């Protein structure tokens, strides 16, 4: 029974991927991509990786889907530019062969693993108590591969900078994205007013329980960003100018707190990003809180896009 469900799920994932590649319009492709992401989420749940499933649903399907949708809308009316930037058939075939080859090699490598697969899970589980984190995934992300997690947080800042760099010089420092009219009545106005408080609580909850159960800063931050986007499209808030110090501080607060905690590890512990014993849990919680803010700010700014209006 379980095996049948897994085979069906695998077939659906591949079908959704093929449908997305063959989709006639950009909009249809994005819809297919979001459906593909949700099916991959189910696959991660079947594999028992609920943390990864939450991240895939929030960032892979949700946030990326919205960013791609905004890109599709922006590309309307730019047919010449789009066709000039679309690669030729030879490049597409080469990219397809390369991706297929990598996928095949990965599949063979996974199938060639001995059963049970070798790993460091037992060693990681044995020492996670020292960090005071009940969720083994959070313990590994913050304790064993803190440097990776720090760099992931920095990458988000660079992604926002890359989007901002798309603006012409005269718009630098301005307000990103289109301006939406304020909805006083109608379904969107109702949704924005009803869902915002619930979503804020759920976003903070998901970020907070990450220490003990599946969840965390990236998943919770994405929900918070989604609530800001909802308030924005309902016209309840306007995006801040990118020259604003508050926006820039929110964007770098997480990486900055992470770096400071890393240097504190050099002063108090065994080295860079080594959590000092006894202080590990409170320091990790502070870093995670700052990271949640920065992830939310970065994703919201990625959706809003480059500055388009003078402040």
């Amino acid at each position: 029974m379980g095996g049948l469900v897994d085979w069906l799920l695998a077939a659906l994932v591949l079908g959704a991927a093929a449908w997305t590649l063959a989709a006639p319009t950009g909009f249809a492709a994005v819809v297919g991509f979001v459906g593909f992401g949700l099916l991959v989420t189910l696959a991660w749940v079947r594999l028992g990786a609920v943390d990864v499933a939450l991240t895939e649903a929030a960032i892979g399907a949700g946030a990326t889907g919205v960013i791609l949708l905004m890109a599709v809308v922006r590309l309307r009316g730019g047919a010449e530019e789009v066709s000039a930037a679309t690669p030729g058939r030879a490049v597409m075939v080469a990219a397809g062969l390369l991706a297929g080859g990598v996928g095949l090699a990965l599949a063979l490598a996974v199938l060639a693993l001995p059963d049970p697969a070798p790993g460091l899970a037992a060693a990681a589980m044995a020492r996670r108590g020292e960090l005071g984190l009940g969720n083994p995934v959070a313990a590994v992300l913050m304790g064993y591969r803190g440097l990776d997690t720090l760099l992931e947080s920095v990458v988000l800042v660079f992604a926002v900078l890359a989007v901002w760099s798309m603006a012409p010089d005269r718009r630098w420092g301005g307000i990103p994205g289109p301006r939406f009219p304020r909805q006083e009545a109608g379904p969107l106005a109702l949704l924005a007013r009803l869902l915002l408080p619930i979503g804020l609580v759920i976003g903070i909850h998901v970020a907070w329980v990450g220490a003990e159960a599946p969840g965390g800063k990236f998943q919770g931050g994405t929900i918070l960003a989604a609530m800001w986007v909802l308030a924005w499209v309902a016209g309840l808030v306007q995006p801040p100018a990118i020259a604003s110090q508050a926006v820039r501080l929110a964007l770098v607060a997480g990486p900055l707190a992470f770096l400071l905690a890393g240097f504190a590890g050099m002063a108090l512990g065994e080295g860079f990003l080594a959590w000092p014993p006894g202080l590990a849990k409170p320091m990790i919680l502070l870093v995670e809180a700052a990271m949640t803010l920065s992830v939310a700010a970065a994703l919201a700014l990625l959706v809003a896009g480059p500055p388009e209006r003078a402040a």
Partner: protein
Amino acid sequence: MIGALQGLGLLAAAAGAGFFLAGTVGLIRFPDTTSRLHALTKADNLGLGLVVLGLLPFAGSLGAALKLLLVWGLVLLAGGTVAQMIAARVRGTEPGA
């Protein structure tokens, strides 16, 4: 061994799956956007409601059961809103536009 409540839960979940199937058939077969929305909201509202109802006996704790109900409530809210917005767009009566 399955208790009577769990048995009822399985029946409710199966009925919910039936609504999803009917809603999907409607989504594919119905001729225009508003009819398709009509079919889709049945799957979202009633189908998911029955599935959630069916899962309640398996929830294990009151907190988990309340979370399941919250999921249904949020889907009702989001699905209803999006259906209204798409329908308004189709009929050209978008508020604020």
